[in-house]
């Protein structure tokens, strides 16, 4: 089976030759290639080259045409600061109050900020790798984009103090995600990960997720499927147990589970969803390869079918390559 076939089979709960494995290698690909992160995040050819190099090194099942969490907000007018060798952060937010989103237009993914870099990276990766592995793009979910446009603190207070304006902001954020996500699929991404860490129950109450976020995530996932995406992947970190039951209603096929979530409990909650996770991300920095192998065994024991072995969240930039390799080798050893 190819990596892509393996992942799609897992999504459909069909037999696979081995458990699919996706270490969430984003900027870590630049680090191991010795490339400055700022270059990786601004030059599509560099990103694609580093992702392919990481794929050849580790032998996993997916690559990511993913820059960072600031692509959309930058395209909408936020000013970023790029540190020497780290991810950028927002220096000045695009809007100061939620109603100001009414003055923003949906950015053209082919022109605005670094969106074209993401599209070009998806195109290059797909051209090079075809259907041998999953080529994943990424969009921010509505809650996270709202936080990235306004600042997390202001956005959260706005959710309580200005609910109507905040809902309009969420609608706008979902529209941005649909437009950018569909453009990435057009460019060559097989699927788009919907990355929405600010929707975590660690950040907002599950009732807010159910009432405000789930409908918009559902609209987004439906739009991505309508564009031809064979599956949708919702990535929310933290203790997602209370919101997992809402995922199927959001048209989610793959649910990321972080290290703090028990895979057995998650499986029992959403037996129909493919899960991916959930080795502790920092373990790739502060542990030994044998610790990773043990952690993988524990995760796989409780996972059942319809499971993709992965880190609970992004592999840290400074992760030890031998630890990442141990994750990938765990499934190969199991099958071999």
């Amino acid at each position: 089976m190819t990596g892509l076939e393996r992942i799609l089979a897992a999504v459909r709960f069909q037999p696979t030759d081995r458990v699919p494995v996706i270490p969430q290698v984003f900027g870590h690909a630049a680090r191991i290639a010795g490339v400055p992160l700022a270059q990786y995040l601004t030059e599509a050819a560099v990103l694609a080259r580093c992702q392919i190099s990481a794929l050849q090194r580790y032998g996993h099942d997916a690559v990511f045409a993913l820059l960072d969490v600031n692509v959309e907000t930058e395209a909408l007018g936020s000013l970023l600061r790029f540190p020497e060798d780290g991810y950028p952060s927002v220096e000045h937010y695009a809007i100061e109050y939620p109603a100001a989103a009414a003055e923003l237009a949906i950015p053209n993914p082919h022109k605005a900020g670094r969106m074209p870099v993401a599209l070009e990276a998806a195109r290059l990766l797909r051209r090079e790798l075809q259907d041998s592995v999953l080529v994943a793009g990424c969009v921010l979910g509505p809650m996270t984009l709202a936080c990235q446009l306004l600042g997390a603190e202001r956005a959260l207070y706005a959710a309580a103090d200005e609910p109507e304006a905040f809902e309009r902001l969420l609608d706008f954020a979902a529209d941005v995600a649909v437009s950018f996500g569909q453009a990435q699929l057009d460019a060559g991404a097989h699927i788009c990960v919907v990355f929405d860490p600010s929707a975590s129950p660690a950040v907002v109450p599950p009732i807010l997720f159910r009432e405000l976020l789930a409908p918009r995530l559902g609209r987004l996932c439906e739009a991505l499927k309508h564009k031809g995406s064979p599956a949708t992947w919702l990535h929310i970190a933290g203790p997602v147990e209370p919101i997992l039951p809402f995922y199927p209603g959001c048209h989610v096929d793959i649910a990321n589970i972080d290290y703090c979530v028990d895979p057995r409990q998650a499986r029992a909650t959403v037996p129909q969803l493919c899960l991916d996770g959930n080795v502790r991300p920092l373990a790739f920095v502060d542990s030994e390869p044998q610790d990773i192998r043990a952690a993988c065994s524990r995760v796989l024991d409780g996972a059942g079918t319809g499971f993709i072995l992965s880190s609970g969240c992004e592999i840290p930039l400074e992760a030890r390559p031998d630890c990442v390799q141990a994750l990938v080798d765990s499934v190969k050893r199991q099958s071999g």
Partner: protein
Amino acid sequence: MDAALSTLVTNLLDGDSQSALTEARRIRASRPDGQRLLVQGLEAAMDSMSAKCTTEQFNLLEIMLTGRAAMAVAREAFPEGSVSETRGTVVIATPQGDVHDLGKNITRMVLSSKGFRVVDCGKDCPVAEMVAAAAREHAFAVLASGLISSVVPLVRQLRGLLRERGLAQLAVVAGGAALKQCAAEALNVDYVARDAFDCVQFLERWPR
């Protein structure tokens, strides 16, 4: 519990700043022991939020709203300054390289409403600056909040830098999404807090 106090606590837990403030003013105007009651109400609300956190039902938004309401009531009760600052001074910061300061700000709010004096060194803060602030402000604890893994090596330096300044007796506490994945020994700190309330409980136990 006293009916007025109970209403105040409910308003605080609902995160309803306006109603909490109205109730606080009513208590202060009508009761000779008003100020003491307001402190009781603040304590009760924060203890209730703390209990909720230990059952892992907490989220940042609820804590922010309750914290904001508590700060409004604290300002009403003590217009000259924060609650009473009898529990000592702590220094808090998000270390250099990390600009995610929401968790730090929430912890600051919770600590302030629990009676600690908080010196906030901000985000993207060099650890040497945190240590200098601890010395200058006679703090008994230094708190580092970090969302991203790149701050781990910086947090590991804190204790050594404190020792160099003759401040080995200070508590060093870490928290935040990245740091709470680590054990205290791995970070060379005294404690890794699960959340702001867990941090408060640890600080309340720290000898000083």
